[in-house]
């Protein structure tokens, strides 16, 4: 049973006041809302995800409700609640969907310490994962999107979930939020990609989500073996430059690009040490998809990097 099936059966008309329960990667999310635009986008982006009609033990109990009182109608707002807490200020009603996505990210990041969580895009090819840490200026979301439609399976554009004890990467495929210029870049480069509505004047500028390919949702419980860690940097006009970097440097940079490395203490250190040990580590500067995508494919299809 998928979300699309539920919607087709009319189970979501009139809102999911009783809560709709669905899979988000390894997690089960329950969303309670009467606001139809959020539900319709949920079904549009995640139609292929498993939905549950029998009781499940839920990881995230999320509610999106409009406030009672004047802010229900005047400069209308939407409030995000996880369990018993409202961690953020209300958003304008028109930004309800980005609020849901961002709120779910926050919920995952603050209570999933049974994983080492990297702030990274992750894509997979032939069972092996390419990890793209999200340094500022990396263009990681845009790059992840391009890879997702050109020969790679998207595991996540935001979270590299490294599980214990296997050290494998858990998928968490979500609608990819593109911002500002990237929206037009992807629209031009990937005409086959389906884009959702534009949300203007959010805290991050203009945001537009890419619908994740059906395949990556269907295979969202299929883990991958980490193989490459590539720190990307977008520099306008720069040729593609993929350079091996020392493991010690990769370790430090990745530790800084993790949601919970520090809190995990010794466990985090050991997990990260093991991850770096298994992967070839590179620094990447790029500007053109037509150049960087073949370079990454060649890296993936080539042999292992020389040296330790």
């Amino acid at each position: 049973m998928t979300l699309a099936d539920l919607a087709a059966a009319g189970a979501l008309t009139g809102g999911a006041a009783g809560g709709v329960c669905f899979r988000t990667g390894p997690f089960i999310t329950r969303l309670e809302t009467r606001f139809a635009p959020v539900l319709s986008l949920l079904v549009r982006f995640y139609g292929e995800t498993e939905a549950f009609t029998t009781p499940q033990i839920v990881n995230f109990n999320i509610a999106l409700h409009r406030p009672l009182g004047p802010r229900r109608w005047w400069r209308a707002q939407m409030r995000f609640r996880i369990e018993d807490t409202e961690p953020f200020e209300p958003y304008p009603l028109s930004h309800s969907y980005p609020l849901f996505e961002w709120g779910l990210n926050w919920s995952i990041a603050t209570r999933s310490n049974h994983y080492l969580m990297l702030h990274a895009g992750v894509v997979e090819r032939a069972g092996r994962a390419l990890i793209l840490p999200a340094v500022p200026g990396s263009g990681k979301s845009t790059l992840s999107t391009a890879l997702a439609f050109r020969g790679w399976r998207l595991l996540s554009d935001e979270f590299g979930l490294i599980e214990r004890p296997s050290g494998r990467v858990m998928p968490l495929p979500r609608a990819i939020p593109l911002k500002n210029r990237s929206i037009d870049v992807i629209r031009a480069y990937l005409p086959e990609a389906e884009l959702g509505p534009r949300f203007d004047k959010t805290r991050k500028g203009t945001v537009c989500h890419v619908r994740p390919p059906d395949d990556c949702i269907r295979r969202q419980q299929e883990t991958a073996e980490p193989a490459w860690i590539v720190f990307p940097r977008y520099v306008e006009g720069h040729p593609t430059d993929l350079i091996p970097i020392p493991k010690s440097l990769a370790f430090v940079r990745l530790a800084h690009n993790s949601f919970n490395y520090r809190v995990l203490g010794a466990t985090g250190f050991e997990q990260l040490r093991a991850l770096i040990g298994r992967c070839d580590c590179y620094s990447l500067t790029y500007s053109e998809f037509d150049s960087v995508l073949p370079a990454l494919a060649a890296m993936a299809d080539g042999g292992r990097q020389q040296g330790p």
Partner: protein
Amino acid sequence: MADNASTQWQAIRPELWIWADWEADYGIYDGGTGETHLLSELPAEVLRQLSRHVMTAAALTANLASLCEVEMAPAWTRKIGGILSELADLELIEPVRL
């Protein structure tokens, strides 16, 4: 911090250290503080020695000079002294209190 050559130095809870070993660099997780440090060869060797024995700065400096096949000179002594000072700031080692 008393910085003279006869000050005895010891590692702070080295049983809580976890090492990572890469080429010329070392990572160390210190369970006593929750901090992670990246060290080059020489500071790593200082820690390794102090985790095995309490030592004076003078003895340590001499050990390392012979290990690195370097002359015992004031510059070397200052270098090791500087490393001891930094490692103490990171709460990895401390002077022994009498």
